[in-house]
């Protein structure tokens, strides 16, 4: 359906602004279908979900349930495993909270060096509370996961492996299937942060066998403020909810309460119905993930890497097998200064440690420039970035 770049760009009204938008790992532009779906819901009369007993409430609930099914199906599971959260960060915190009682002093949690702070700090916190230890799976010199090193760290004390599917700094893709196989042999749970991967790689949670996986709407062309937390049937049943309150209680007595079964247990408070509807619409429009099989986006990425590498004074980080993201630095100019100057010239990208400070420190850097691609980026965006980096280097007299 989407094989023509102008046709694709026309589906994203945010691109009418005359900039080269290369900050998609932070937030993508929203697909028109998501905007339309939310507009239709909001302008058609809305209600809270799961509360009212009138026809509008019934319609709301139908749309909310349908959205849940669509989002769940996008990653290969049924709706009964898909919890809506406000963000991936909330989802990962909820999972860490829910698993804390499974940890004993001396137990180990493995994370990778690639983790975003959202998949690091919740584990550090519960480890501290429970006397457990967080250990970091290493990186190879080619900036991929050192799988042998990671496997060697797994033992009978390993209870949880929390790992990203795709680095938000380097685009490195991690071998989730191998990690899951090894983890399950020792009885460890695997929690996957698919925030970046969801827009770039096909994901089938059932095939991968991961115990929990999270991804967000606003990085997949949908609205902000909503994300999915996919849990195994065991975790749906056994995990304690982090947020308690309205909408998730089955029975309440003077001094106790029983949670509702299934996903509702984890959705205390009024749900973001329009967000869920927009999320589902965006995924429907974009499925299958556009970069599968080395699609157009990867051609752009290859060209971006080649062109950036050709500029004297630019160092590009290019792990084998990476997708969607290119990090680079300019000798002698701080990444924030370059990004600031690029921004003034209509090129939007991110600079800094990208909320992955341990990885950036491992690279012995104070930050990188990160160009992150989406389905709508084209050669003009690449040219705008590359020509302006050249100009900045030339005029900044490094």
């Amino acid at each position, binding site marked *: 359906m989407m094989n023509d770049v102008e046709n694709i760009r026309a589906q994203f009204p945010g691109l009418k602004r005359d900039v080269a938008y290369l900050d998609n790992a932070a937030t993508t532009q929203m697909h028109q279908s998501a905007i339309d779906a939310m507009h239709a819901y909001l302008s058609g009369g809305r209600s809270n979900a799961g509360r009212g007993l009138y026809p509008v409430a019934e319609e709301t609930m139908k749309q909310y349930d349908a959205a849940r099914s669509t989002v769940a199906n996008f990653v290969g599971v049924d709706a009964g495993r898909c919890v809506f959260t406000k963000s991936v960060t909330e989802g990962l915190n909820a999972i860490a909270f829910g698993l804390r009682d499974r940890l004993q002093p001396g137990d180990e949690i493995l994370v990778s060096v690639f983790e975003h702070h959202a998949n690091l700090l919740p584990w550090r916190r519960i480890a501290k509370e429970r006397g457990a230890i967080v250990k970091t799976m290493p990186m190879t010199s080619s900036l991929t996961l050192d799988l042998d090193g990671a496997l060697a760290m797994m033992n009978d004390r390993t209870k949880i492996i929390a790992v990203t599917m795709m680095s938000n700094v380097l685009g490195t893709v991690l071998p989730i299937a191998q990690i899951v196989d090894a983890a399950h042999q020792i009885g460890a749970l695997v929690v996957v942060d698919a925030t970046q991967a969801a827009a770039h790689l096909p994901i089938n949670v059932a095939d991968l066998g991961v115990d929990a996986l999270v991804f967000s709407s606003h990085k997949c062309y949908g609205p902000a403020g909503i994300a999915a937390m996919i849990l195994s049937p065991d975790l749906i049943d056994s995990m304690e909810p982090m947020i308690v309150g309205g909408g998730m209680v089955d029975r309440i007595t003077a001094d106790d309460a029983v949670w509702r079964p299934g996903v509702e247990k984890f959705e205390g408070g009024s749900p973001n119905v329009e967000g869920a509807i927009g999320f589902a619409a965006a995924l429907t429009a974009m499925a299958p993930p556009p970069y599968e099989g080395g699609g157009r986006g990867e051609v752009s990425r290859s060209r971006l890497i080649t062109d950036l590498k050709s500029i004297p004074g630019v160092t590009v980080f290019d792990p084998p097998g990476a997708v969607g993201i290119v990090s680079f630095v300019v000798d002698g100019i*701080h990444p*924030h200064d370059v990004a*600031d100057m690029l921004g*003034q010239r209509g090129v939007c990208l991110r600079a*800094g*440690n990208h909320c992955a400070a341990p990885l950036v420190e491992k690279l012995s850097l*104070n*930050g990188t420039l990160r160009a992150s691609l989406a389905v709508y980026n084209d050669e003009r965006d690449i040219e705008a970035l590359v020509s302006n980096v050249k100009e900045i280097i030339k*005029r*900044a007299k490094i």
Partner: protein
Amino acid sequence: MLLEYENLLALANRQNHRGPMADFSISATAVNASCGDECTVWMKIIDDAIVDVSFEAKGCVISRASAAVIADAAIGLIGRIGPMGGQDVRALLGVAVSPLRERCLTTPLKALHDALAKL
């Protein structure tokens, strides 16, 4: 912005007031974790007056240029600098700095205030 960058770079590379001070009265370090900026300020205080300031700053051009102009401005001030903020530093720099760079701009100022708070 490129011309502004060149002006900022000139300030950032200036050697005035650079490096640790041997006989300082107070000192503090501030960091801007998101940018990797780090600034240490040393001050000599006599009779409640700032008689000398030196600093070491590393990081982006805005934080380094900010440290340079703040050091110039602080010398001779009597007592605490008071409610000096990002707008004051912008005025000292004489260039437009985006609000998105506020922490870059004010990290040296935070070091200065943290040091003065030790008096």
